[in-house]
């Protein structure tokens, strides 16, 4: 009930007036019930039931925050206008709406208002119909009189609902009525024609009524399809509007509305949203990368600057030589960082690796001689597979770079004189290169992050912090993958898989 308590004063007054007017009209008509015969009572019952039933078959049409419901109730009333006395119709409207909307669980205020405005509307219709002095049911002027009478009903109905919505939403009434007017008019015309047709068939023989079912069904399906397409069009326009706003603005955390999961626009919105998620994550990653790079550069810059500054006021030759050495080595560190960043940036480009057939044994021999200085005799090479295939399709320079990075990493983490093992295995559909060390190993958290840029711990030795990220970049550029198997205290095995 809290929703009603928040209604603006003007809306409450209007609802009060409509309910009072409807109540008065009902009282006037109720006085005529004493004159009803069995036929009138039966007509009342049939109409009321028809209204209750038609109220249950609504075609909801969402527009902004409001849902407009279309149904066949107007057709029942048109038929009633043509077939029964005004008092029967008016009381049937009241009883039918009351019962029908109660069944749908609407709030008492809403039901009271609807009963009121429908009774006022149908009273206007019966008055107009009576004034036009209609003839028999088989005369076209009677049908025209019914149409005009129902037009009066339509006007009362549209204005009453429009005013309440305008008061509640605090907008001009035209802005409430206009959007649904064409559709409402079409719905009204269809209902009047159907009601008139029903009355005529009823008059000829009620057994003919089932004949109306087929055209009604076809019309219903076509109508529903039309409504859906309109709604989809509106949703598309809404999606395009929000997407434009996201594209124009800087708030990448905004998302498209995803209501109505069953509809195509909902699926489209979800797809676009997951795309936005990925874009946002990628941007965040880039931002973090930039922040890490600037952090990485601070230390060598601090060192270079500091060592030059403290040369003053009277440096000895020894001081200068020492500063020179420090500066050169720090500049080297920065060059390596820039070089590694550039490699990493290119790793996703299509031309990053140039695949060729590489003889595995020759490749291993070359790699071993390159790694000799790095590992100082600590390297052992294992070929575990006796597969006939001797050729791997790879970029030998890049693959060497990746494996040297892994060997360098292992050399830093293995115990002082500990062996580092380079293993090569031909698996079902890939070549697997692995580098094993007997170092301290990695925790689960370290395993998860170790291939990310700058993920190295504080205790780790020199290097740009991009070595393993480059390893993964090279493996993926080959269409393969990179990973690590390790437990704390049990060494680590880093591997690269390249498709065979």
């Amino acid at each position: 009930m809290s929703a009603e308590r928040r209604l603006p004063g003007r809306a409450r007054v209007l609802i009060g007036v409509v309910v009072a007017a409807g109540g008065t009209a009902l009282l006037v008509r109720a006085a005529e019930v004493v004159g009803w015969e069995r036929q009138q009572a039966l007509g009342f019952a049939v109409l009321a039931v028809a209204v209750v039933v038609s109220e249950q078959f609504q075609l909801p049409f969402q527009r902004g925050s409001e849902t407009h419901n279309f149904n066949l109730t107007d057709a029942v009333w048109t038929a009633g206008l043509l077939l029964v006395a005004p008092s029967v119709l008016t009381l049937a409207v009241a009883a039918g709406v009351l019962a029908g909307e109660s069944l749908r669980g609407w709030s008492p205020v809403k039901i009271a208002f609807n009963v009121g405005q429908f009774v006022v509307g149908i009273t206007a219709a019966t008055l107009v119909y009576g004034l036009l002095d209609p003839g028999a049911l088989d005369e076209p002027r009677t049908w025209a009189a019914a149409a005009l009478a129902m037009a009066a009903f339509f006007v009362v109905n549209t204005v009453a609902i429009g005013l309440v919505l305008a008061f509640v939403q605090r907008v001009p009434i035209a802005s409430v009525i206009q959007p649904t007017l064409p559709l409402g008019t079409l719905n009204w015309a269809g209902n009047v024609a159907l009601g008139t047709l029903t009355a005529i068939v009823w008059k000829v023989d009620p057994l003919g009524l089932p004949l109306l079912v087929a055209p009604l069904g076809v019309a219903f399906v076509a109508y529903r399809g039309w409504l859906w397409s309109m709604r989809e069009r509106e949703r598309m326009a809404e999606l395009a509007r929000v997407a434009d706003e996201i594209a124009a603005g800087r708030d990448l955390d905004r998302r498209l509305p995803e209501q109505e999961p069953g509809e195509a626009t909902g699926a489209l919105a979800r797809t676009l949203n997951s795309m936005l998620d990925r874009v946002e994550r990628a941007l965040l990653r880039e931002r973090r990368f930039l922040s890490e790079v600037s952090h990485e550069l601070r230390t060598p810059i601090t060192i270079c600057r500091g060592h030059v500054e403290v040369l003053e006021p009277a440096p000895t030759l020894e001081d200068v030589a020492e500063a020179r050495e420090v500066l050169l080595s720090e500049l080297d560190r920065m060059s390596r960082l820039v070089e590694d960043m550039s490699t990493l940036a290119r790793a996703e480009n299509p031309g990053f690796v140039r695949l060729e057939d590489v003889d595995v044994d020759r490749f291993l021999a070359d790699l071993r001689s390159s790694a000799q200085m790095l590992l100082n005799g600590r390297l052992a090479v294992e070929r575990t597979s006796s597969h006939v295939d001797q050729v791997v399709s790879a970029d030998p320079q890049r693959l060497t770079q990746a494996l040297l990075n892994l060997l360098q990493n292992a050399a830093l983490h293995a115990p002082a004189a500990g062996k580092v093992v380079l293993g090569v295995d031909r698996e079902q559909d890939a070549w697997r290169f692995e580098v094993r060390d007997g170092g301290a190993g990695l925790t689960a958290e370290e395993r998860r992050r170790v291939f990310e840029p700058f993920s190295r711990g504080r205790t780790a030795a020199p290097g740009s912090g991009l070595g393993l990220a480059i390893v993964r970049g090279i493996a993926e550029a080959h269409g393969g993958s990179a990973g690590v198997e390790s437990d704390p205290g049990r060494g680590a095995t880093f591997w690269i898989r390249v498709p065979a």
Partner: protein
Amino acid sequence: MTILVVEDETRIAAFVRKGLEARGYDAETVGTGGAALARLARGGVALVILDLGLPDLDGIEVLQRVRGDGSQVPVIVLTARNEAEEEIRKLELPISSYVTKPFAFERLAECVRAGLVNGDDR
């Protein structure tokens, strides 16, 4: 009285010490939070230059322990990240000043002078 330089990057520690000594101060360097706490416990430290990115203890943790022991020795925080300033402010840890890397040595020297004269800003 000694200025204690807590910095794990030896090349930074080296020039800071050299620069301070050239200005007539007595300076010592340590590379870990644990060594810093041990050195402070021995006494005779007039001012601490504390890098926040230490290998063993977080610099902020070192600062918390120093203040937790009731020491009011002036501390100049050396940091490569701007977020650290916010964190220290939130913890309401009194420090003498912040110096963000990279820095001009003259700026650090001024902070040292001010720290020795005024102690910590409260």
